[in-house]
């Protein structure tokens, strides 16, 4: 064991599982505390002492958590904990918690080695999407401007948009599929929010994925694409234990 946290503190904030030889993030962690490493064989956990006072899970803590995980991710493979994960600071407690899961944690780190996450959000430009629906459905277009059919018109447009959103979502995922290792869809088929998904890719491949998404989107004017990253693989850290 190395880099144990101060024994005076009552709780530890857990950032991520990682390998014990990772370069420690330099900046302060949650509550301004310095980040240290709790190693148990081939698996380590990035932690920092958490003062008893103050409410856990505030926005500043979230920002600090994200910063530490991001820095660690830039130094090596990490499996981020869901925010906020807090354990009693007693070393034995921590190791009692980690040891039974060590093989699984190690497998998770092996699985995530060399990979990163991109966050994909697809939306419709409302005016463009509605105009497209009306252009494809002249009968709906005739209902415009009438108060007695407003609900019918709106309902029909929403139904068309949702149907289109599912198709567009499948199409964009198909467009990037050759470049990604995995995808996790969080939401699909809304009349405004077409698709929210996370993509697991090899590090350094973000631009290729972006290019592929852009090539596809160029053919679909109502579609707006937002691609964020590269992120630590938050969305893919907890997959195998559940299955």
């Amino acid at each position, binding site marked *: 064991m190395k880099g144990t946290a101060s024994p005076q503190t009552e709780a530890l904030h857990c950032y991520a599982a990682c390998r014990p030889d990772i370069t420690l993030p330099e900046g302060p962690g949650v509550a301004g505390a310095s980040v240290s490493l709790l190693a148990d064989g081939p698996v380590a956990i990035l932690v920092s002492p958490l003062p008893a006072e103050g409410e856990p899970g505030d926005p500043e803590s979230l920002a600090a958590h994200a910063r530490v995980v991001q820095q660690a991710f830039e130094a090596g493979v990490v499996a981020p904990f869901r925010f906020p*994960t807090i354990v009693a600071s007693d070393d034995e407690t921590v190791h009692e918690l980690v040891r039974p899961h060590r093989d699984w944690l190690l497998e998770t780190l092996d699985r995530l080695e060399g990979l990163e996450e991109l966050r994909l959000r697809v939306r419709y430009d409302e005016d463009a999407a509605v105009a497209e629906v009306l252009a494809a459905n002249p009968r709906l277009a005739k209902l415009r401007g009438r108060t007695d059919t407003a609900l019918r018109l709106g309902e029909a447009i929403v139904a068309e948009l949702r149907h289109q959103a599912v198709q567009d979502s499948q199409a964009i995922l198909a467009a990037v599929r050759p470049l990604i290792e995995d995808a996790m869809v969080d939401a699909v088929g809304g009349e405004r929010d077409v698709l929210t998904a996370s993509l697991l890719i090899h590090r350094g491949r973000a631009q290729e994925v972006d290019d592929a998404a852009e090539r596809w989107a160029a053919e679909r*004017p109502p579609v707006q694409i937002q691609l964020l990253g590269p992120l630590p693989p938050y969305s893919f850290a907890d997959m195998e234990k559940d299955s």
Partner: protein
Amino acid sequence: MSIMSQTGLYDVIDVILDKGLVIDAFVRVSVVGIEVLTIDARVVVASVDTYLHFAEAANRLDLRAGTGSQPLGGLLGGGTTALGSPSNATGIGGAVHKIRERAE
């Protein structure tokens, strides 16, 4: 864009909060005081309001430009071409940045 900027963090807050390792024995305390969560977590439910909103959207569109897919580019006001400036794609030391964000 750095993850530390308000926008950057906001953009990935659902990922950080809802995803990640959960070990059964680990305590995960409740999250308090994260106001932006309430914005991001809103559930969009189709309702009368939604229908009326889209009916209104349809009403305000100027369809005189024609029908079919071709005029839609005009309705976008050239938005698709102005989007995602190359600077957005520049890496900043591997930190989180917007690879591209199409203008709203």
